[in-house]
């Protein structure tokens, strides 16, 4: 029976087979096309000051492996992560104008914005001078310019040194702000929720933290008008409800 069917199939005319092949190819493309068009591409340049590490390339959480690329890819951004400078002059602490100066002078033009690729920048430094317990800062001066993450924050005992999940989460969170994601885009445990709202804290036993964006975040990253997503575009919070 099976061989008969096969025989019948093989008796289809070449023209019919060609139509079938074209149909399959078309359908395949139709399904695949929106996914590839959906992804928006951006460089993410990461710099550090001397003696401070880059954020972890990947961590395993709740049985899954996450990286900055995978987190943002899931959100609709094809992030081209470039680990750039790692020897920016170190200070024990930095204030806002120092970090702002650092951003303006260390952003590598190689990873600057291109017609089909945006450009985001974030630096890892020691800590904030005036606000030692904060984890990060976003600069939003005539557009979302870039961010800094504080590796030696006093907000966590020991800073981020032995907290790879918190480190990756904090970094993804700040970069999320650069893409105009808000805290209100998060639910109770996702990336854009403020760290203070997660109990137990990331890396502590039983933490409910998720290293994922919510559907609301993903929808913004993938579908909102470019001006409101692109780093350097609209002001932080503009174009968001």
């Amino acid at each position, binding site marked *: 029976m099976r061989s008969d069917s096969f025989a019948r199939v093989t008796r289809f005319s070449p023209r019919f087979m060609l139509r079938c092949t074209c149909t399959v190819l078309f359908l395949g493309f139709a399904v695949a096309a929106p996914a590839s068009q959906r992804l928006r591409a951006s460089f993410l340049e990461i710099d550090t000051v001397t003696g401070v590490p880059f954020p972890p390339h990947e961590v395993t959480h709740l049985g899954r492996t996450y990286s900055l690329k995978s987190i943002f890819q899931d959100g609709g951004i094809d992030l081209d992560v470039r680990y750039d400078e790692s020897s920016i002059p170190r200070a024990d602490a930095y204030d806002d104008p120092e970090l702002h100066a650092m951003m303006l002078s260390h952003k590598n033009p190689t990873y600057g914005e291109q017609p089909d690729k945006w450009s985001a920048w974030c630096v890892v430094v020691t800590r904030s001078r005036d606000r030692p317990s904060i984890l990060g800062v976003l600069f939003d001066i005539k557009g979302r310019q870039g961010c800094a993450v504080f590796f030696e924050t006093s907000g966590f005992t020991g800073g981020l040194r032995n907290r790879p999940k918190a480190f990756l989460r904090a970094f993804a969170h700040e970069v999320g702000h650069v893409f105009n994601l808000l805290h209100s885009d998060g639910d109770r445990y996702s990336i854009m929720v403020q*760290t203070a709202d997660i109990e137990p804290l990331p890396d502590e036993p039983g933490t409910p933290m998720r290293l994922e964006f919510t559907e609301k975040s993903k929808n913004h990253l993938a579908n909102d008008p470019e001006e409101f997503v692109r780093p350097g575009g609209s002001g932080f919070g503009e174009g968001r409800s």
Partner: protein
Amino acid sequence: MKPSMRAACNVGLLVFLLGASTTGAQALELKLLLAQTEPDGVLLLGQPVVVLVILQNNGEKPVKVPTQELAPEYNHVRLWIRHPAGREEELRPPVHYEGPGQIHALEPGKFVFDFAKIFYTSQGPLFREPGWYSVRGLYVFRGVTAESSVLSFRVIAPDDPAEHQQAMLLVQDEASLFMYFDGGSHLKRGLAWLQSAADLKPDSLLAGYAWYALGRNLTRDSYDNRERSWSPADLRTSIEYLSKAKRAPLSPYYTKQTYLGLIYAYDKIGLKKEATALANEYVQRTSKETSKKWYLTSFDRDVSTILPDFSRDRPP
């Protein structure tokens, strides 16, 4: 009285209380309070506007609140500004801070407070023209909300031509950002504009603000963009500039900050005795006025990081 003097005497810093709540079981324990210490608030064009944000628990149970994180940069408090033409916009600060922050249970009757610099936003200086402005706030944290009443104040242009010119310099974008950051040697144009403003009429109120920012800038090491290296702070020039700022009738917030800058600079160059004398001077001049208790509390907090051994008798 000249407008500039009125501005100097009356205002400097505007106060509103955030209170009340509308949602959540804990929220019902809060009430709305509004206090505006200078109801006739008049500010000079170019004067940096700072709002004191106070969150008070008037309920009967403790409420968890963020400690010292009520400036809009922390995103727990949102502010809306109404312009003279009637347009209202949400204030979008140029920087945003991320916790984890410190959270504590605010006991009934107690309060937390913070200062919000509202004169510079992500789109540049906010108060570029004279007229009536108003600001209102909304506090949201862990489902508890509190809405403030509306605080109104008036911005006036200086009568004196030199002061008017100073005001025009101070509302320039980079000058205002320099003021917001308390410095920033990489902001070359802003630094030059503030220096010009200070030199135009060195003893005016607006010059006082310029001297403050220029002086504070020199208390920190500066980063050279071209050389990609740090240059050491110029503490002696900083003391010179901050001393000029101290002589001006700055707002209570900037008076406090000026003293802290001077104390820091004196301490750093090893003149601890002078630093301590300045701390005592600030306490003496401020503790006489009960309306300045916020600044004194804030001063206590900040001076302890510079002079850990400094202590004073608290006023009754």
